[in-house]
């Protein structure tokens, strides 16, 4: 952008009480700022975020004709929105604001006041240098209609769909099974109230079935997704049901069907026919034919028994086996739920090997009146009444040993599941001895502790200490050996039935769904929310929300809460009818573009297409900048993170004593937040590092690193999200391949490649951030001052080389 004359930048240095001023000489930093080019005024303030200070800033903008503002205070993750709003109140474009993080990334991580003040000065110099080049952007508005897609018909999807439909929005509910209800439909009673699960779920399912605003698509899966909020195009593949809505659910087809297969709804504990229903209250009410197991195949009729039995003539084998539907929706709610952990993956407890070892989800079907035993508790081996029943907690949970099968997290529901089931057994078999082997009982929730107390008073034994394995005896009873930790003594107990209390894990389809919708997952495999505390149902992609156990293990109540929250978040967008998109998109300078198509191939969001030259679909662009870093001719400019702005930061960071400085490039989502976390945790690290924030490590133009070396920087550290956790799917892997190339380039320039490093740091890994920085600083210490390998100064042509290579 062409500017008229020198900018007028206002710089405000925050004391943050003593948070900053206790370490950094704030007044000295303000004095220093006054001398920087383009700075019209610089002040220090006690609390920059206070309303009074913001009014002062607004006043300064208007009285002093400021056209840029820099605040040196806490992390932009904290207060950037606050100050941007102040700029807008003063009539200044919010993209003309820049923040220097002198709290989380300075005063909280360095104890030496002198070094911290020097760093604060550098951070302010960098922010001012960047501010000089900031460009105002107008945020574009795109229309958002009133159609929502809900993926998954469990309790979360049902709740979200109903809330949206009741609010007047059109909902497509896609469920891969022939019936909705999910895991909740399999449960007998719910904790802690012991409501009958089906009794409270069935009315909701029925409402979904008849709601005029809900299009229910069962036997259906999402196959392809393109577009963006307000304009998602979704391809759904629906398998035929072979039963038409004329079905009156009389059930006369069932007894005549000659096929019997294990019933997955009953966890394989019973059999079902090829024409079937999950449970009497199933929705849709029509029966479904499992064509995989039916004797008939499309266009090949060998058995007509059900056809003959069906008086309303509702069975039609001529339906095409599958059809594709093209939906257009404005918002999406992902509610695909979770899978129960499968304990047969680990041999210790003999699941799948010993008949009388079952899981808690198997037991739900065993005790359910609609289950294979019609609610009688029978042990599978001989259908006898079990007298001694054991629950083993934490099966597949809380396992951080990478050598073992299982998940490191606590699912948070299994304690209550076992306590509930133990109480239900007590009701049906008052004589049964019930023992719950546990590590810790986690009963946090409304009415949970009370239920735990009820169980103890009912005589259920809680033994702290897990058995190491389950041994089967000749009478099919099971022996558990372990330590009663509270006694410090060994136990050896015999049980007739052992119930493994399993946790939840991410659906096996999660990866597919993640790729289809361009979402991120956390290291546990569950979908990642935009912010774990403050945006718990949003995803990083505008217009896509999370509900239920797809995001993390949840009970029914929590799933409902999140589903209703997701519905209201989606409704908020659709009610507004339009959305402002952050102006962080890519822009193609067509005069430079050669139309090579590299950007189109690297864009994770299908936001670029080449038609002679490249064109960016602004609403689909998420602003990662992978395209800009890949463009061989530098024809792509990233709004608010232009090459010139980043290079200005590099140069400002190295303006003073460059050979001591370490440049750290961070991505906005993981490693920058990880550095903030190091600050919040007050973890000290080497004070010579200067952080530069990019949106994604994939934005790293090799030129940025080369410019740092050209100016004599001791080292350059590239940081980003762990593989698989990239906010932009795979930007970090682009960074990795560029890093490999850059190392080769450094070698060919005669520089020590050890001065360049790449590390993955997640937003939660403050400790790791500090370790990584210190280890790198230690390595540079050993290498000494930057020189060419043969003892010469680095050639000033490195940046030229970078431009050619990049």
């Amino acid at each position: 952008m062409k500017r008229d004359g020198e900018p007028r930048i206002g710089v405000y240095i925050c004391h943050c009480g003593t948070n900053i001023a206790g370490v950094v000489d704030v007044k000295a930093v303000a004095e220093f700022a006054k001398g920087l080019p383009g700075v019209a005024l610089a002040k220090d303030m006690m609390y920059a975020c206070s309303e009074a200070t913001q009014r002062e800033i607004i006043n300064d903008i208007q009285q002093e004709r400021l056209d840029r503002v820099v605040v040196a205070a806490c992390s932009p993750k904290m207060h950037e929105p606050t100050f941007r709003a102040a700029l807008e109140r003063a009539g200044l474009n919010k993209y003309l604001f820049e923040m220097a993080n002198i709290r989380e990334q300075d005063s909280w991580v360095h104890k030496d006041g002198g070094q911290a003040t020097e760093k604060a000065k550098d951070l302010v110099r960098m922010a001012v240098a960047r501010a000089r080049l900031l460009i105002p952007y107008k945020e574009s508005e795109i229309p958002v209609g009133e159609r929502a897609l809900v993926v998954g018909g469990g309790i979360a999807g049902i709740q979200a769909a109903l809330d949206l439909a009741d609010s007047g929005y059109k909902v497509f509910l896609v469920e891969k099974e022939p019936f909705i209800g999910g895991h909740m439909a399999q449960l007998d009673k719910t904790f802690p109230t012991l409501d009958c699960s089906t009794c409270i779920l069935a009315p909701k399912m029925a409402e979904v079935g008849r709601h005029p605003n809900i299009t229910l698509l069962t036997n259906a899966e999402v196959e392809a997704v393109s577009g963006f909020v307000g304009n998602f195009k979704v391809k759904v593949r629906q398998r035929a049901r072979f039963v038409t809505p004329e079905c009156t659910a009389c059930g006369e087809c069932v007894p005549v069907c000659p096929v019997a297969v294990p019933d997955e709804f009953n966890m394989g504990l019973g059999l079902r026919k090829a024409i079937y229903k999950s449970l009497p209250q199933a929705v849709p009410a029509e029966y479904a034919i499992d064509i995989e197991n039916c004797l008939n195949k499309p266009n090949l009729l060998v058995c007509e028994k059900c056809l003959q039995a069906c008086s309303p003539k509702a069975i039609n084998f001529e339906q095409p086996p599958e059809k594709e539907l093209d939906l257009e929706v404005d918002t999406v709610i992902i509610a695909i739920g979770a899978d129960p952990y499968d304990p047969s993956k680990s041999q210790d407890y003999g699941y799948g090997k010993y008949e009388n070892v079952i899981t808690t989800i198997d037991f739900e079907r065993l005790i359910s009146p609609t289950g294979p035993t019609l609610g009688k508790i029978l042990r599978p081996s001989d259908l006898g009444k079990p007298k001694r029943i054991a629950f083993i907690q934490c099966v597949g949970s809380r396992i951080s040993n990478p050598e073992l099968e299982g998940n490191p997290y606590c699912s948070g529901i299994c304690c209550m599941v076992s306590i509930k089931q133990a109480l239900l057994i007590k009701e049906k078999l008052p004589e049964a001895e019930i023992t719950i082997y546990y590590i810790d009982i986690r009963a946090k929730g409304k009415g949970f502790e009370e239920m735990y107390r009820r169980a103890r008073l009912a005589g259920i034994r809680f033994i702290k200490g897990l058995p190491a394995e389950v041994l089967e005896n000749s009478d099919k009873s099971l022996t558990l050996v372990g330590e009663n930790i509270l006694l410090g003594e060994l136990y050896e107990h015999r049980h007739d039935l052992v119930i493994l209390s399993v946790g939840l894990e991410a659906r096996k389809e999660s990866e597919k769904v993640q790729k289809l919708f361009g979402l991120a997952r956390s290291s546990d495999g569950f979908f990642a929310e935009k912010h774990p505390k403050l945006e718990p149902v949003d995803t990083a992609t505008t217009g896509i929300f999370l509900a239920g156990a797809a995001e993390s293990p949840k009970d029914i109540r929590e799933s409902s809460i999140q589903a209703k929250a997701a519905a209201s978040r989606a409704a908020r967008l659709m009610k507004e009818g339009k959305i402002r998109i952050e102006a962080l998109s890519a822009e193609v300078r067509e005069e430079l573009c050669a139309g090579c198509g590299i950007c189109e191939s690297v864009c994770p969001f299908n936001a670029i297409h080449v038609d002679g030259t490249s064109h960016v679909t602004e609403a689909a662009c998420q602003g990662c900048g992978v395209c800009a870093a890949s463009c061989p001719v530098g024809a792509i400019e990233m709004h608010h993170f232009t090459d010139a702005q980043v290079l200005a930061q590099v140069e400002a960071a190295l303006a003073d004593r460059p050979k001591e400085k370490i440049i750290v490039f961070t991505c906005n989502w993981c490693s920058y937040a990880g550095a903030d976390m190091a600050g919040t945790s007050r973890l000290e690290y080497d004070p010579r590092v200067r952080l530069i924030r990019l949106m994604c490590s994939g934005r790293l133009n090799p030129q940025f690193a080369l410019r740092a070396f050209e100016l004599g920087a001791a080292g350059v550290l590239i940081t980003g999200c762990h593989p698989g956790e990239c906010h932009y799917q795979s930007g970090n892997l682009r960074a990795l391949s560029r890093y490999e190339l850059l190392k080769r380039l450094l070698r060919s320039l005669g520089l020590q490649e050890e001065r360049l490093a790449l590390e993955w740091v997640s937003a939660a890994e403050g400790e790791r951030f500090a370790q990584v920085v210190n280890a790198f600083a230690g390595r540079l210490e050993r290498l000494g001052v930057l020189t060419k390998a043969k003892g010469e100064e680095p050639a000033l042509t490195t940046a030229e080389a970078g431009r050619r290579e990049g």
Partner: protein
Amino acid sequence: MDKMGKIDLSAKELQEEVEALSGQRVFACYHCGKCTAGCPFASEMDLTPRQVLEYIMEGRVEVLNSRTIWLCAACFTCTVRCPNGIDIARVMEALRQILLRRGEDSLDLASLGEEELPQIALVAGARKLIG
């Protein structure tokens, strides 16, 4: 177990020495009891393997007087089962080493003299009782 008389270690020194010798983070233990549950010698031990870890976490130096650390056969059953990835067999070895390296309970092969010893006892003793 008697109060530790022979070796003068503070609680912190004990913890540091165990972690340094074993390379294990003892404090990761959350007391599930699977180490004891699978231990073939647990019934003969005065402290269960899990209690040994608790003694270290509590900095109780008398753990060095426990029979358990000598009964441990280093079969590694506890190690492979620990959900927290603590190599408990190494922790046991570290406790033995603390004693052996100070000359406590160590075996002086030369002093065995002429008495008849089964070969297996000699080899096992040499392995386990020499610091």
